[in-house]
C-alpha cells in the first residue's frame, strides 16, 4: 500500500470534532469519493473521534490518502493514551457500552468502512485504523 498524502491532527476538545470532520471531507473530496461513501466515512470518523474524546480525553488522528492496486482511499488512524479496552470482542458488539451512550460507536463505525482494525493495551491506549476506498460498496 502506498501513502500519497498524510497529515496529523490533535483532538482535545468537542469543537475539534467538526473541524476534524471537515478535514476528512477535504480528503474524501480530493480523491473523488462518492457522496454516500463520503458520508459513511465521515460518520464513522465522527464516532471514533468522539470515543477518543470520551474515554481518553482526546488523542491524535493521522489522515492519509492511500493507494493499493491503483485504487485510492482514505485511511484514518486514531491513537489515544486512554485506559484501553479490556475486552475488544465485547466492545465490538452492538449495544454494549461502558459509558452512557448507545453502544453504537465501534460496531457502527466498522460497518461504515471497508477496513477496520483495532488494537488496545489496557492502561496504555487504543489504536483504531479505518480505510474507506473511493468507490467500494
Amino acid at each position, binding site marked *: 500500500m502506498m501513502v500519497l498524502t498524510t497529515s496529523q491532527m490533535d483532538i482535545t476538545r468537542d469543537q475539534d470534532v467538526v473541524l476534524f470532520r471537515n478535514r476528512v471531507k477535504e480528503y474524501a473530496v480530493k480523491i473523488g469519493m462518492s457522496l454516500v461513501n463520503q*458520508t459513511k466515512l465521515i460518520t464513522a470518523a465522527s464516532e471514533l473521534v468522539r470515543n477518543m474524546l470520551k474515554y481518553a480525553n482526546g488523542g491524535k488522528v493521522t489522515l492519509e490518502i492511500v493507494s493499493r492496486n491503483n485504487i485510492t482511499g482514505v485511511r484514518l488512524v486514531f491513537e489515544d493514551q486512554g485506559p484501553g479496552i479490556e475486552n475488544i470482542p465485547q466492545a465490538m458488539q452492538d449495544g454494549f457500552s461502558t459509558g452512557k451512550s*448507545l453502544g453504537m460507536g465501534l460496531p*457502527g463505525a466498522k460497518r461504515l468502512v471497508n477496513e477496520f482494525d483495532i488494537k488496545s493495551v489496557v492502561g496504555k491506549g487504543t489504536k483504531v485504523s479505518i480505510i474507506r476506498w473511493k468507490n467500494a460498496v
Partner: protein
Amino acid sequence: MERIPILKMGEFLLVTIQVDLYDRLALTLENDLINMVAKSGSKGVLIDISSVSIVDSFMGRILGNIASMSRILDAETVVVGMQPAVAITLVELGLTLSGVHTALNVEKGIDLLKSKIGDTPTDEDHDGIDD
C-alpha cells in the same frame, strides 16, 4: 454564545439547523427547545436537517431526546429534510431514530404534525353529532 434560532409558527416550533452542530451547540439547542415547548405550549416541533451532512450517534441521540422530552410535554416532533446519504448511513450505523417522526420536507412535516395532534375543533367548525 452561539445559538440555533427557534421560530414560533402558529402552534408549532420550527428549527432549521444550517451548520454542522458541535456538541455544546446541540445540547444548548436541546435545552432551549424543551424550554420553549414548555413556555409556548406548542403542540409540535419541526426540525429541518436538510443542510446537515452528518448525523452520528450523538446527534441521533439528541434528536431522540428532543422527541421524548417534547412528548412528555405533550408535543410531537418531526424531523424533516434528511439527505438520502444521511439516511443510508444512519441505517448502516444501526441508528433507527425510533420515536422520532420524519417527513420529506417542512410542508409534509406540518401536515404530519396536524394529523398527529388532530386539528383541534374551534367553535365554528364544531358541529357535534347529528341525530
